Structures are given as C-alpha cells and as structure tokens.
C-alpha cells in the first residue's frame, strides 16, 4: 500500500487540476456525445415516491425535477443559495407559514402538455397517500397542505415554521405529471407501466430500459432551462466490480463512479482515463450498543458506561487506522457528518489517541487485568465484546481487524463476527450486537441527525446504539427550530461536541470519493448530494468525440444529429 502513495498523490493533483474549469474546452462544448456510465446495480423502478435504489435515483434525477435545488454549499436552512428548477421564483408569506412557488411557464412534460401548479399539488397528494407507501411521506409531515393559487402558482402551507421548510417543499418531491397518473391505481403504481416507462419534465427523456443490462436516456431538446449538452446517457449495468472496472479500462464505458484504493495504480498506466474527486457525505464509525442486547432494560455491561466508551476511543489511533485502510484516500472523521455538510465544524474537540490514558481510565472504572492474562476483567466478566461487520465491505473489515489489535493493547478483547449485509442490517435493527462497523451517507439535511441519535429514535427510529441524552435532544431541537443559520449552526456545534464527548461511537473515516472517467468527458458540478445531479451540464468537446458520440439523437436516423 505504501508504494502506491506517490501514484495516488500524482492522481490527486491531476484530479484537482481537472476540477478547474478549462475555458477553452468550455468553448468547445457544443451539443452532442454519449456518456456510458458503468453502474453496479440496475434500477428497481423509475418512480420517485418509491425509490430506494441509487441507480433509480440517478436516472430519475434526469427525467423528473424538483421545484428548486440547493447550491453547492448544500445550505438547508432557509433558501439562500437555492436555484430554481421547475419553479422560476418563490415568495414567503410574512409569517413564514407559507411559500408560493411560481412554475416556469416554459416547462413542458416530455409528452407535450405544460407543467402546471396542479401537477405539484397532485404530486404532494400522491407522495402522502398511504396507499402509495412512499418512504418520503413522513419527511413531508410539516407541510399542512398544498394549494393551487393559479395555473402557475402553487402555495405550500406549513403547520409550523422551521428552518428546513423550504428544503422540504422544494427538494423532497420530484414533480409528477397529473395527466398521466391521475387515473392510476395508487396501490399498484410501483408495478405500473409509468414506473418503467416514465415521462417527466427534466433535461433528459426516457428511451428504453433493458432490465439488468442498460437504461438509456436522450437529451430533451425542449427542456425549459436549455438543452443538455450530451445527446445520450446510458447506464450500463455491471454488478461485478471487476467487470465494471474492466469496462472502463477497455473503453466500453466512460465513467465509474466509485474506485477502490487498489485501482489507482493500474489506472496510472492509462493516460486516457482520469480521476476526478467529488465531495461526499459518507462517513464510517464503530457504533457502541449502550443497552444490553440480551436484556434491553439494562445498560450494556461495557458500553453502558460513558467513561469506558471514552477510554476505548482513546485506544484507537484513527490517523494510523485511516492510513492503513485507505492510504491517503480518506481522512479521519470527527463526527456524524462530513466536510460537505453545511453545518460541518472542524473545531469539534476530539478524544485524543492516548493508550496510556485509556488504560488508566479503564483501571479507574474497575476493569483491571487481575490475573495477568493480558485481558481486563471486572466482577468476573472479561472486557470482551463482539464487533459485527458486513463481509461485503473490505474497508470496514480491515478497520475492524486493526481496531481489534489496538483494543488488545489496552486489554480489551474484541472479536469480529462477519455476516452478509442484510443480516448485519437486521442485527442492528433488532439491537442484537455489542459494537457494529458502520458507514452512513447523510442526506445533506443537518436535522437528520435526530433520526439517528435522539432519544425518540431509540424505539421508533434508527438510533441502533440507544444513545440517550436529553441535552443532545434539546440542542438539536433548538437548532432545528432556529431560522437564523448562524444561530442554528451554533446549536448544531454544541450537539456535535456533546456527541464527540459522550462517545456513542468512534468516528473513524471520511472516504474521499473519486470517479474514474475517460479524458474526453468533462464533468461539471459534481455534488456531495449526488455527483449525477448536473449531468445536463457535462460535455464532450467536438474534437475529442469517438464513434458512439456521433450517433445523434434519433434511433431511427443514426446519421442524424
């Protein structure tokens, strides 16, 4: 791994240089070209209310639109930095309990009719209909109603003011065509023809979906914000990572969105392929279960004690661990967030790596190595616990092994239990674990932290480690009701600091995300909340196009375009 460091640094420099906008290339950004994405999974359906799969989300983002999108800073408090999509403009009521969105009068559904305010109201009704079973519905709970004021104006009414209410209205729903869906059986929408042959208002239109082989979109030349540069985008499905990587290397594909650390070295021998770094919302951590998995009414015999958790955190050299697992392709995480989150704060004090202090703290809590066998005990119980790890994740497995050794240095005996991904998920959901190797992708909304760490989420949510802190709950509640971004940020900072101090988890790594792509592809605006969100702005300069870039728009006239 060490030998690869110079190669990686060179590629990093190339990647960063590639991010700078090349003015001369931009001038050459005439329309045309085909982008083939080597995708690891097929879409499950193309119907936004029911989407849980990343490929579905990528495709839908090109076909359907939000009312507005956040700027690159991903500000979710208020509307600062937001850019209109289907909505040309918006206005707040004086009491901030309603927002009126003005639909772009030029917006058209891809089958012809104009997009109207009634489509937005219809979409809200559909997302919140219990018969549909949308995963998004609960996120819309603060919307009281959606009312059509005139054919192009739709008003969102809220039950209460909240800093994220604009994001909720503008970004949680992709707007759907009422004229195509109003008569559909809502219980069967997932298996409807529309969900496999969608019609939207976005920059690309649906062409075909050959299950588990490809999904093809074509430029929507009537797009109200201007035709996308690319003629065509194809998701070419290759579930095996090696096959997907080989597709890129052999030129059959243009982009691979995710790279493994070991792939940088072979790529260095391919000057026709470049690596591009993009911001990410993914972080990894070792989660402690604070309740006894065998009897949840009792605290966990080890992790129920805050001091022990802090001591075990001190035993982990996170800088070394990240270096060993990712080389220079990740940085140590400092909390349940990444640099791309709008409320990120690099000043959060961390529990330092201090094995001697860790040993002293464990001594102080009664965990001592009385029999001299190298492992600590207390009341006849060894300081021994199991870390559950999904076997599909090599970095998590490596990190677990390294931590096992670091825990051993302070007399804590960690055992690793590998399992497949669904089993790992169900063990966490059932709270049947001591410690769990986890990665999480934030949705970019700061208040989401409530669903993962609040007391309310212990029983009815995803607080799998059962961390409970009334002070944390109060801080996040204050932050989530604060309309002033600076004040909200200050509350979030205190909440983050409390999490760092209470150590409900050891924050481990924040992997840097790299895509590998052919040199002729010029990506624009790859964002943390989705590298694919601005595909309409990507381009292939005329002078660099290959045969598949010249096939044109219409399937019937290959020479056209």
């Amino acid at each position: 791994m060490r030998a690869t460091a110079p190669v990686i640094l060179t590629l990093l420099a190339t990647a960063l240089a590639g991010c700078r906008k090349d003015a001369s290339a931009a001038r050459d950004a005439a329309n045309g070209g085909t982008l083939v994405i080597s995708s690891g999974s097929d879409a499950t359906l193309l119907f936004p209310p029911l989407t849980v799969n990343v490929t579905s989300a990528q495709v839908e983002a090109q076909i359907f639109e939000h009312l507005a999108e956040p700027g690159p800073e991903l500000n979710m408090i208020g509307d600062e930095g937001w850019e209109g999509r289907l909505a040309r403009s918006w206005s707040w009521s004086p009491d901030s309990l309603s927002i009126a969105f003005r639909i772009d009068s030029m917006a058209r559904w891809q089958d012809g009719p104009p997009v109207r305010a009634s489509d937005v109201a219809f979409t809200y009704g559909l997302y919140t209909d219990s018969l549909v079973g949308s995963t998004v519905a609960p996120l819309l709970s603060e919307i009281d109603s959606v009312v059509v004021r005139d054919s192009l104006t739709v008003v969102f009414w809220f039950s209460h003011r909240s800093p994220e209410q604009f994001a909720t209205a503008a970004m949680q729903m992709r707007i759907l065509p009422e004229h195509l869906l109003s008569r559909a059986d809502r219980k069967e929408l997932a298996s409807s023809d529309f969900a496999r042959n969608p019609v939207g208002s976005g920059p690309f239109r649906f062409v075909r979906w050959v299950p588990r082989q490809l999904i093809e979109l074509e430029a929507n030349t009537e797009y109200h914000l201007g035709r996308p540069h690319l003629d065509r985008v194809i998701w070419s499905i290759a579930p095996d990572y090696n096959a997907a990587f080989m597709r890129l290397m052999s030129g059959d594909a243009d982009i691979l969105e995710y790279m493994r650390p070991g792939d940088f070295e072979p790529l260095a021998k391919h000057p026709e392929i470049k690596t591009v770094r993009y911001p990410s919302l993914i972080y990894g951590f070792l989660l402690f279960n604070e309740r006894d998995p065998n009897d949840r009414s009792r605290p966990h015999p080890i992790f129920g004690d805050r001091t022990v958790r802090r001591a075990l955190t001190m035993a982990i050299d996170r800088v070394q661990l990240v270096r060993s697992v990712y080389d220079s392709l990740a940085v140590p995480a400092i909390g349940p967030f990444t640099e791309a989150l709008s409320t990120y704060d690099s000043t959060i004090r961390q529990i330092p790596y201090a094995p001697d202090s860790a040993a002293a703290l464990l001594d102080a809590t009664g965990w001592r190595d009385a029999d001299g066998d190298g492992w600590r005990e207390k009341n006849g119980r060894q300081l021994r616990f199991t870390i559950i790890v999904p076997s599909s994740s090599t970095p998590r497995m490596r990190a677990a092994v390294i931590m096992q050794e670091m825990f051993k240095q302070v007399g804590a005996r960690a055992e690793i239990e590998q399992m497949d991904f669904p089993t790992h998920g169900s063990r966490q959901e059932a709270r049947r674990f001591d410690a769990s190797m986890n990665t999480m992708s934030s949705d970019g909304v700061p208040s989401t932290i409530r669903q993962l760490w609040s007391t309310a989420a212990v029983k009815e949510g995803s607080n799998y480690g059962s961390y409970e802190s009334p002070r944390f709950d109060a801080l996040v509640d204050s932050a989530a009701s604060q309309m002033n971004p600076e004040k909200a940020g200050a509350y979030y900072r205190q909440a983050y600091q409390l999490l760092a101090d209470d150590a409900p988890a050891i924050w481990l790594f924040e992997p840097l995300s790299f895509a590998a792509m052919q040199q002729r592809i010029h990506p624009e605006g790859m964002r943390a909340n989705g590298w694919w969100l601005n595909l309409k702005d990507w381009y292939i300069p005329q002078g660099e196009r290959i045969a598949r870039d010249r096939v044109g728009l219409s399937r019937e006239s290959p020479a056209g375009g």
Partner: protein
Amino acid sequence: MIALLLRRLAQGVVIVWLVATLTFLLLHAAPGDPVSATLTDPLTPPAVREYWVHRLGLDLPLHQQYWHYLTSVASGGFGFSFPHHRPVSAVLAEALPNTLLLMGVAIVIAFAAGILIGVVQARRKGKPVDWGLGIGSLFFYSMPDFWLALMMLLVFAYWLRLFPASGMFDPVMYGFMGPWARAADRLWHLVLPAGTLALLVTAAVARFQRSALLEVAQQDFARTARAKGLGERAVIWRHSLRNALLPVITLFGLALPALLGGSVFVESVFSWPGMGTLTVNAIATRDYQLLTAVVIVTSALVVTGNLVADLLYAWADPRVRLGE
C-alpha cells in the same frame, strides 16, 4: 414409454416441491426479510417498513405465508418481488431465456468439443497429442470457475481486446444495427461467457470420453471389427463411439446442475443478465418469492435434464429397457 415419462414426471414434481419447501423454510429462518434488505437506508421511517411488511404479508404466520406461496405457484405467478417491484413471473421471463441461451450454447460447444477431444486422445493414446490434450483438460478441469472467468475477461477483453468485457450487446450501437449486424453483435458478446462455461465442462467430457473409448476399444466387438479388416477410424466412429457414449450421457445429466452453478459466477463476471445474477441479487435482498421461484425453475431444469439423459441412454444402448 409414456408410463415411464409420467412416473418420472410425478417424481420430478415431488422433488421440485420438496426443494422449494426446503428453500422456503431455510430462507425464512435466515435473518432479515425483503423489506429490511431493500429499505436499507436507516432514515427510512419504521411506519413505511411496517406498511410494506404488512402489504406483502410478511407479518403473517409462516404456515399462512407458505400456503399463499403454494397457491401463487400453482397459479403460475410465483408471487410478487418487492425488490424488483414486479411479479416474479415477469422477472423470471426476462432472465430465464438469457441463461438458457448461455447454457445451451455452452453445452453444445462443451459436448461437441469434449467428445472430439476424447476421441482424438483415445486414437493417439500415449502420443504427444494425447499427453498435451490430457494436461490441457486437467488444467481446465481443476480450475475454479470464477477464476477462469476473471482470467478470460482479463486476457481476451482487456489485454487482447478481442471480445467485449460484458453484457449481451453493445449498449450504444446495437439500436442502430441491421438484423445481421445485431445477430453478429449478440454472438460476439456470447463468446467469452459461453466459452468460459464450455471450457469448464469440455475438460470433464474429454476425460470421460477418452477413458470410455479406450475401455470399449478392448472389447470383443471392437476386436472383431478390426479382424474384419475395418480401419481404426471406422472402428471408433461406427462401432465404439456409440457404446462409449454412456458415461458421457451420465455426465450430461450431471452437467446441468454444474452449469447452473457455474453460471452464477460466469454471469456475474460477464454481467450476463440471467438466472445466476438474479439468484445472487435475490439472496442479497432476501427476495423470498423470487429465490424460491428460481430454485423451482432450476430444479425443474435439472430433473428434465436427467430425464433427457435417461432417454439418451436408451437410444445409445439398446440393452437399456425404459421402464425397467
């Protein structure tokens, strides 16, 4: 003959039912369910999970789920796949032809090439050709299928760039091709996955064929044929080969499950959208309905393959009486 077929068919139905039931029970004993394995985002509200669990009937007692499953199989629908959001029958209808195409081509190549190599080896026993082909077939026979698939990918798709790395057709240009060019493109994409599967089986067929032929060549009727003045070529092709086919026919029956197993890896490596990759995904997403349906279809294929092998036995060896 018809009585035998009916009896075998009845046995086959029982076997398939037993396999399907066992799969159903084992799957339900494993941790997780299709909803939790599909809605993996921890931010998914519990109410949404519960809604889908209830709607899919996963909260029913096991015996009721089993009964619902049996009735849906009997009606030919195989139930609903939550991860695919479609009826299982629709998902199978897309995947099964792709696997049958891959396996069909692989079987034809494997048995034609394997028999030919076996005959050549038997005729050249002890000579360099026999020695070379023997080592070659042993090499492929002992090779793990996933490793062979990866090596084929590396050598022919990446280093030599002779064949496409994956998929069933060119994702961009296929739509712009004429019928002949499309057929050629399909064949081009079939070479590596079918070739890999065929290589794995060819080696076994060749080894069996060689041994069988050498044994038959020592028997009285072969000696008589030679004594009549027939040439070695005629002795082998006209008299010995049919008798030496019996072990190879046995191998044909056994090759079907082996090919289905091998296709899991080969389809994954070459992104071939058949039953193999479908099975892997179904396991990963705890897709009970789909996985049980896959097991039913594959066990039915194996049962059918064995029945075909029995019929071929009777054709190859008149001493075998069907029904006895």
